[in-house]
């Protein structure tokens, strides 16, 4: 199965890249862009077929490497 993992900055952590994107969008003429927060999307293909074991593994993968939990949150969905 595949894990589709999203990594986002925690609320309250400044996101200068998001701000730059917001300014660019406003500069392009898009009105009403209130805020932009950017993050990462990572797909991991797992050999596991049982969901509980896969969840445990993906949690560890996120905590150990993919996300820095000082500043980032992660969430994911498992798809067959």
């Amino acid at each position: 199965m595949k894990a589709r993992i999203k990594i986002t900055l925690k609320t309250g952590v400044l996101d200068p890249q998001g701000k730059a994107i917001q300014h660019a969008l406003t500069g392009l003429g898009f009105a009403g862009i209130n805020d932009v927060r950017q993050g990462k999307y990572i797909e991991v293909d797992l050999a596991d077929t049982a969901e509980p074991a896969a969840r445990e593994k993906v949690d560890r993968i996120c905590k150990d490497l993919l996300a820095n939990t000082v500043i980032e949150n992660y969430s994911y969905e498992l798809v067959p």
Partner: protein
Amino acid sequence: MQASVIVFPGSNCDRDVKVALEAVIGRPVRMVWHGDSQMPASDLIVVPGGFSYGDYLRCGAMAAHSPIMRDVVGKAKAGTPVIGICNGFQILTEAGLLPGVLMRNASLKYICRDVTLKVEQTDTPFTRAYRKGEIVTIPIGHAEGNYFADQATLERLEGEGRVVFRYVDALGNATAEANPNGAQHNIAGICDEKRRVLGMMPHPERLFEPMQGGTDGRKLFESLIEKMAA
């Protein structure tokens, strides 16, 4: 004194720091490949600047899990002095030896220039040759030096006197204008609770002999000899 410098794929200040250390301590410095799993006997471990693993994922994130880092963490916990410069600082935070994280500069720009620093603490093996409160000039060269930690961590760092270097103006004031990258509390360098692990964004090896235009970085390396002689 035996100093060792870790070399990761993408390190680019490893030889600079080797030259600076050898000039000051007068002994050959050992280069240790990141893929090794055992550190040779060392009185000092340097995690140098550069772009380890191309800064993939997050700066320092991949290098922090290199085989050699497990032993570096163990040696640091056993008391061997470890200094991380620039990318080395990022690696030490990712490896959990120092708290917080180095985020993208507030300006989003790569900044390469001299900055003015205050040496806040001199009771570390890396800063004892400086005067407490001394104002020094040392270059930075980074795009991710914006130090961030939660409020409790910041209070702890300040309360325990673990902010070793701070960005200041010529008068020694930690103003917003003197802060090149948006770092909280103008933090340029911190140490761990045992004061044996130092992480700093500025590059002392880039200003240790007159040919480079200044020598303010030299005392950091001289501090280490004093420590070894003590």
